[in-house]
């Protein structure tokens, strides 16, 4: 009798500890498609409708930027400079469609920091060119490379277009720096694209569970982080002085571009890419399951508020408010900053709905906060 109960106790503790150990975050989920909304189909649409084709077209845009840059440095003249600037605009716009996907290899490589940190550091760029010793892999050089640095070189390194051409003609170090900058983003982007197409796509889609490190959770976190930091604050809030009290015109994106100035078009492109992703509207692959649809599905389960339509309305409102902005945000901030501030407020409404209502409804934890709850 005593033996049996001791055995029972031992068994009890053994079971307890098994469940304990078995309860890690990375529990396999053999029955992942139990529910009506199939997250893996949404993940597939994200990858095949946005991420992979987005990077592909961005990579093509960088390729032609690279070709035009090579042409320009081979024999700098005004028409080649303008050609280069055109392609710079295409590539910079294509970047706005993929910047939000800082996940997987892009995250490991810090693609966004290598690509679009502004304001760019003019002094350091010039000193790099003079010294001809620089290491673009160092985090300290993030503000000396990417689109803002290329932009500075081809729009503003000297007072007039003619002087810029002269500078490149007379100084091979400028040519080298420009080529290095384009090559750098081309290599990094190529690596990210190849990673997606050689295995990461499948890994990403298969990880369709509900844990904090699952693909949906990470993507939603990265997507929101991008919106808050780089779209809402980076493109509008910071130059409008929302966080500093007084406007910071030097922080406008694409500050040096002219005919056309790119600040508004980059911003609008980024905002509509953000919206299309939320609604699952891919320009490459048609409509598909999306966060919006997912939210509607959750709403049928909880009979809660209609969050997806509230978010869509808030984004549409933000776009409408934004349409009234000047093409050049520098001018907008200087002449009537209140419109920039109004745009920020409209963008902030989207933040509120996404960070509170959407995350709460989707059971997504913010930034993988892995502390216990009760």
């Amino acid at each position, binding site marked *: 009798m005593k033996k049996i109960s*001791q055995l029972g106790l031992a068994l009890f503790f053994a079971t307890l500890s098994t469940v304990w150990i078995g309860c890690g975050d990375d529990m396999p989920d053999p029955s992942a498609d139990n529910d009506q909304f199939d997250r893996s189909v949404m993940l597939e649409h994200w990858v095949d409708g946005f991420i992979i084709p987005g990077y592909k077209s961005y990579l093509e845009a960088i390729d032609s930027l690279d070709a035009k840059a090579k042409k320009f440095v081979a024999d700098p003249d005004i028409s080649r400079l303008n050609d280069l600037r055109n392609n710079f605009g295409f590539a910079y716009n294509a970047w706005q469609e993929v910047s939000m996907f800082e996940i997987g290899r892009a995250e490991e490589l810090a693609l966004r920091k290598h690509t679009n940190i502004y304001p760019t550091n003019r002094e350091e760029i010039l000193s790099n060119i003079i010294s001809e010793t620089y290491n673009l892999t160092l985090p300290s050089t993030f503000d000396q490379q990417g689109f803002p640095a290329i932009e500075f070189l081809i729009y503003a390194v000297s007072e007039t277009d003619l002087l810029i051409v002269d500078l490149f003609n007379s100084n091979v170090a400028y040519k080298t720096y420009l080529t290095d900058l384009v090559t750098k983003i081309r290599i990094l982007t190529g690596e990210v694209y190849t990673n997606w197409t050689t295995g990461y796509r499948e890994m990403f889609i298969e990880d369709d569970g509900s844990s904090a490190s699952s693909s949906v959770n990470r993507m939603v976190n990265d997507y929101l982080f991008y919106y808050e930091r780089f779209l809402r604050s980076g493109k509008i809030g910071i130059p409008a002085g929302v966080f500093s009290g007084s406007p910071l015109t030097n922080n406008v994106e694409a500050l040096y571009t002219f005919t056309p100035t790119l600040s508004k078009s980059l911003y609008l492109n980024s905002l509509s890419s953000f919206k299309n992703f939320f609604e699952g509207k891919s320009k490459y692959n048609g409509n598909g399951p999306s966060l919006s649809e997912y939210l509607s599905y*959750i709403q049928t389960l909880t009979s809660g508020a209609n969050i997806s339509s509230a978010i869509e309305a808030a984004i549409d409102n933000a776009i409408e408010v934004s349409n009234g902005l000047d093409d050049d945000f520098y001018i907008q901030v200087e002449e009537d900053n209140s419109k920039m501030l109004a745009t920020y407020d409209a963008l902030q409404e989207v933040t509120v709905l996404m960070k*509170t209502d959407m995350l709460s409804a989707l059971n997504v934890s913010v930034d993988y906060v892995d502390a*216990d*709850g009760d």
Partner: protein
Amino acid sequence: MTIHSYLNKTTKAASLAVFRILFGLLMIISLIRFTSLGWIDKLYISPELFFSYLGFSWVKPLGQWTYLLFAICGFSAIGVTIGYKYRISIIIFFLSFTYIELMDKTTYLNHYYFVSVMAFLMMWLPMHRYYSFDAYRNDNLRAQYIPRWTVDAIKLVLGIVYIYAGLAKINYDWLINALPLKIWLPGSYDLPLIGGLLEQPWMAYTFSWGGMIYDLTIPFLLLWKPTRKVAFFMVIVFHLLTRVLFPIGMFPFIMILSTMIFFDSRVHERILDVFAKIIGKSKNIFDNGSSAIYRIKENRNFSIFIVSIFLVLQLLIPFRYLLYPDNLYWTEEGYRFSWRVMLMEKAGTASFKIVDGETKKRFYVDNRDFLTSFQEKQMATQPDMIIEYAHYLRDHFTNQGHQNIEVYVESYVTLNGALSKRFIDPEVDLTKESNTWRHKEWILDN
């Protein structure tokens, strides 16, 4: 039965010994887990500021010394487990553990509070008279029997935890709308076997009502001998289920092992036999037939006095919310320390506007400059944290040379899946308001 005769009743000391050992072991494991997950640095060293409980703003993390604090807590837990210098160990454990919990309100969890409550109680009970290092060395201390009220006090605290958790579940959203479980359960759609069912509304209702009935009845089912075994089986199933469904860390294991106190002492003696086998020290020498008597009668009376007051406070504290107007879940005034476990789904955003009162120049704060994402998340839904943060911002920007600072907050909160609403009055300058026990008038109506 008079009170006097009740207080003189005795029971086997093995019950308290088992409780002490299991409690101590779980604490050691919890502390190791906490440390190995890197949470000491993440929660107590790297953050810029820490949220304090009223009256305890002097309790702050100690920089790198925080590791030492955890080490002290861990060693005292070992002392408790083996019963080595027990009184000092449990006092140090209570103080260090409670200090850790008071360092930052952000990390408040009911189960941490439960640990502090239990540790406090254990300071006054003769947990070390049997199968302990102390009693092994000192035969004056050794006792086979202890007063029965000491075991009952532990049972009562457990009963309070369950019953108050059950009472808290008797509310409209929980029972009639099955919220927040309707929101939470679908999140675990990928569990084996039950995953597919979790999206069914009837599952949410089953869990809501089942949880309420479980909490309200389990202490009685555990007390009554005929139902005890079934009840304990239910305890295991219930808590393991919550462990699988929700990220609640060690709490289920603490509750499962704690409820073993309800078994009669023969079971506890058998458990000690198992321990004895493992460590090769039989419990026989503790079976001396003697009864733990307090050396001086005043000592006993003092312990009873303290424990009684403590238990009465435990009964009253959860009801303090009645002193506040408005919806408890919305304002969270009197929410903590009341065994309101996993009761609501609440999320929010709060952006703070710093205004120069004279020039009206203003700017918004990037919360990430000051708070971890965990702190930001917790702060956004809890008014007492919002005002503490607002005051921190006032001091920070004043020190930076800004003048006439006013702090306003644009905050929105969603509760149980309703569309988010404004939480705090955006027109109220929070620097003019103070953080007290009084009702916070600047919380808007839900």
